[in-house]
């Protein structure tokens, strides 16, 4: 795995629907700049096979992403990150990376780390 490789991770026991986990993580990768305009995503079938979930679940996530303008699906090229989708500004992105490293170093769970951010946002 390279440092810039985008991966998905879904938790089947999470209260968040799997398609929503996929959608949110693709959006997060785009915001973080790990997925850029024109980058191809795996096929629905391949992603469903790798995750061991129903293709319909991945298809729903891709539909949501397409309707939000994050990706485009073309018959010949497959699903690609849509033009015009830009990552977050550089400074917040670097701050987020630094915070993620600090959270990992502190042993925070993902939920705890996100709760901290949410709390900080609510205070502003």
């Amino acid at each position, binding site marked *: 795995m390279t440092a*810039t490789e985008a991966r998905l991770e879904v938790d*089947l026991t999470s209260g968040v629907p799997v398609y929503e986990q996929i*959608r949110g993580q693709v959006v997060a990768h785009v915001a973080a700049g790990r997925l850029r305009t024109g980058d191809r995503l795996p096929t629905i079938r391949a992603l469903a096979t790798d995750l061991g979930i129903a293709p319909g679940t991945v298809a729903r996530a891709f539909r949501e992403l397409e309707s939000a303008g994050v990706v485009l699906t073309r018959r010949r090229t497959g699903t690609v990150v849509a033009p015009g989708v830009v990552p977050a500004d550089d400074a917040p992105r670097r701050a987020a990376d630094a915070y993620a490293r600090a959270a990992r170093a502190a042993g925070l769970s993902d939920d705890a780390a996100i709760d901290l951010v949410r709390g900080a946002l609510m205070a502003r």
Partner: protein
Amino acid sequence: MSTHLLVLAVVAMAALVGVVSVAVAVVAAVLAASGRRQVQPGVGGPAPRDSSVAYRRARRHATATALLSWGVALVVALPFGGLLTRGDRLLDGAPGLGVALLPTTFGLTLLAIAAVGELTWPRPEGSVRSAALAPRTLGALAPRGLRLLTWAWAGALTIVLLVTGLTATPGGRSFRVEWVTEGVTSESGPYPGWPYAGPLLVAGLVVLVVAEVVLRLVARRPAVADTVTVDDERLRRVSARRVLAGAQLVIAGTLSGVLTYTGIALRNAATSTYGWSDGTQSVSATLVAPGVMAAGVVAAVLGVAVAIAGIVVTMVALAQAATEAGTAPVGAPVAGPAVAGPAPVGAPPVDRPVGRTVDAPAGDAP
């Protein structure tokens, strides 16, 4: 073809199909069992976070597939394929065709079991699953040189069989040279005319197509759970290399046999000794067709060279596959606090992959 030979051929074919089917079924059961051993935490439990465990499990499955496919192909297909040759007349007018199709029998058995191995590849388990967000392409996974060589063997086989089919005698079993001035003809066989060239052409193309289908199965199988992409792709390359090693060997073996028989027939037909007698003395003369003789020598030498090349390439490819399969995985236990416990004892301490993402924030849920 006489009735009893026809019955023998049908019975032998049915026996071969039956035995290979049983072998494939047994292989499927064995492979499924190999995939279930050391089962990861079950439904609802945490995902296997130790990538080396998932990798070892996948590697064991790949090794079992390779051993079974090559082993069954050798132990079952060849002896039962040999039964087909007892009658020696699969097609009327083509004695020895069963022998010529033995490499194909071997290859299709090998590829069928390899396909079963891919279809029974360990599925993702556990409640947390991960996957790379990049498409996999067959071109990036299959060893390019080996794949090109397999296609090259198939192309050469097609060309050679078309030439021999068009240049054979009308009966399709021999090659004839005529010296018009002397009124002498020389004919030699067996020569791969259409009774041989047709089935062998179909067989070679079937092996090529089936190999490509199996390669696509390799590309489409589930990723190794919770290991990094380079480890997963390495195992795919290992599988693809083993598939191509077998396919190119089969096509090269068929091509070698065709070239060798062609060369021998051309050489034999290129010379003719004839004589006459006027009652008081006998005179004999030997005619030579130098072009045909040269073509025969070249074909025979190429036949041997192709056989050697096919065997050497197979051995090198299998050795490379074994080396690659034995490479230690670089994948790390992804010790995500949200979903996993501490890394297991003995696991290499590695950095958390930067590209890994966290679960979607709860606030994003509908």
